[in-house]
């Protein structure tokens, strides 16, 4: 069981719980209103999306730009199960939550299956083709949703019960980040980094590069699908346009500005860039002009992203950083 490695797992959990406690106290004290809580929940979902994208893009050196497509698969699958088939509601949480959990896991599995369909043929190729195939797959998934009537088609799917609370987001974020963290610092993670640094050398040392790449991609798509499920039950209304390639590009921005080669970067990036437009609210329409400028300047003056190769100490013991981290 490579997943059940305890070192730093507990530290990561404690760090997340502390953040949760602070937010909850601020919420109860009336400093953070419902709007900010909603925003923080989005940050949590974006963190999981970005870390899962980072597994493929940052750690394996592949280039996927269609992550929102897998998110859409998860969102629609889970929403159809809870809303269209079973008509669950939040009034009876003892029935609702088990259904919700099964639904988001089903969404994740279906997204993983979609990930396999996209990844298995295209990861054999090198270069930018994965990027283009994932981008196309993202838009193709969106088109399929648009023409499928049971999914609401171009009208969107509404009336989804609001199962996603702050607690749900935190449990989900902790679980996903810990799972992905432990995978990335296992021997599989080391083969991923070997593939990133030199695919030919990795192959020569006996790593089955195609299998490793496809597995990471499917694993990553699974988390994107689960995030989609959590996202759908937060917004309560989903529309195919929520999951266009523009959304995928947003996650790329979070990842590369935070620092693609570290988990900490994939946590910092979405946290800053989800909150930044809100913090600049007083600038009104200027904020969407300043936001890309910050992005460009960050990339020019700190190309490796905000965190670069550094990890927070709750993710990786500082003494091990030199050993684990490679360029």
């Amino acid at each position, binding site marked *: 069981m490579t997943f059940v490695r305890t070192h730093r797992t507990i530290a990561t959990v404690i760090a997340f719980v502390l953040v949760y406690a602070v937010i909850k106290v601020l919420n109860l004290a009336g400093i953070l209103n419902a709007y900010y809580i909603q925003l923080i929940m989005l940050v949590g979902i974006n963190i999981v999306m970005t870390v899962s994208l980072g597994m493929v893009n940052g750690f394996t050196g592949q280039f996927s730009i269609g992550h929102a497509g897998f998110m859409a698969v998860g969102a629609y699958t889970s929403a159809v199960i809870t809303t269209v088939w079973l008509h669950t509601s939040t009034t009876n949480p003892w029935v609702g939550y088990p259904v919700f959990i099964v639904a988001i896991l089903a969404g994740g599995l279906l997204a993983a299956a979609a990930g396999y369909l996209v990844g298995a043929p295209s990861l054999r190729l090198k270069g930018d083709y994965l990027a283009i195939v994932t981008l196309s797959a993202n838009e193709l998934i969106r088109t399929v949703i648009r023409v499928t009537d049971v999914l609401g088609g171009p009208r969107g799917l509404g009336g989804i019960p609001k199962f996603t609370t702050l607690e749900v987001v935190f449990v989900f974020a902790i679980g996903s980040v810990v799972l992905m963290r432990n995978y990335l610092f296992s021997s599989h993670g080391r083969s991923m980094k070997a593939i990133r640094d030199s695919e030919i050398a990795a192959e020569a040392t006996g790593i089955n590069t195609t299998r490793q790449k496809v597995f990471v991609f499917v694993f990553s798509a699974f988390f994107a699908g689960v995030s989609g499920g959590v996202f759908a039950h937060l917004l309560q209304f989903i529309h195919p346009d929520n999951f266009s390639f523009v959304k995928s590009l947003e996650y790329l*921005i979070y990842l590369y500005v935070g620092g693609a080669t570290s988990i900490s970067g994939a946590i910092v990036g979405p946290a800053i860039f989800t909150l930044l437009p809100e913090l600049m609210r007083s600038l009104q329409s200027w904020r*969407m*002009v300043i936001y*890309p400028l910050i992005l460009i300047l960050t990339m020019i003056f700190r190309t490796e992203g905000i965190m670069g190769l550094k990890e927070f100490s709750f993710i990786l013991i500082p003494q091990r950083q030199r050993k684990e981290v490679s360029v």
Partner: protein
Amino acid sequence: MGQFLQQLINGIQIGSIYALIALGYTMVYGIVRIINFAHADIFMVGAYMGFFLAPVMAKIFGGAFIPTIIAAMLITGLLGFVMEKLAYRPLRYKSRLSALITALGVSIFLENFSAMPFVFGPNFRKFPDLIVAKNIPIPGSLGLSISNVLLLDVGVSVILMVLLFWFVNKTLIGKQMRAVAFDKPTASLMGINIDIVISTAFIVGPALAGAGGILYGTTYGMLASPFLGIWPGLKAFIAAVLGGIGNIPGAVLGAYIMGISEAFATSVNSNLGYGIAFAILIGILLVKPSGLLGKFMPEKV
């Protein structure tokens, strides 16, 4: 049969506009290997230039179309040059992906800056009539007609494409561009100034997109918002990949395939028309990963 021909004609028309945008993607990709996401927004700037310049040009020159398209091409070419200088050049020798994120940043900046009320404004605009649209019936074909806008679209793009082929194949800088696209380090050892070649690609590509923007405005008669470039840009990019990215005839071929298949699929269902491009692309890439006319380059150890 009449329906079939009409869709074919529509497809060729939209394909011509895609081709002009796709050429810019493919040139920039061929030389610097980045997907220039901001290219779609340069197309948008070109279209808006038509809106703002056409009345001025009509006053100065009497006729609007030719001076407007030339002015728009000059302005978008300049914009491409400045963009490369400020945003991409500092990242030239760093990670390719950071250049891609910068391109995204430039794209978001151009969209939102253009949407400011004192720039282009966020609202719908009616595109001025650069030429008087009229339908010319085709003799001997049962009620089929061709609009003069269509002839203009196809004519202008064919002229620009021929000029581009001449530029790339016959001029010295064009030869240098091909050399740089083939092998950058060797080309620079042969005394080619890489900076000039890259700048040229970032002038010529955006200028073509600017012309595409004018044609887009003339064809549809309206400009929805400064975000209008995103989807035509994406389609054109897909077209460039379909034909083999980095390959100039490939981009044109891809754009016409894309335009025609889209016109046919749209006549069945508008959502299908949108998605067909991606299905075709995935299908072709699975069979021929380098695109229709692209060359496969094996990786050397």
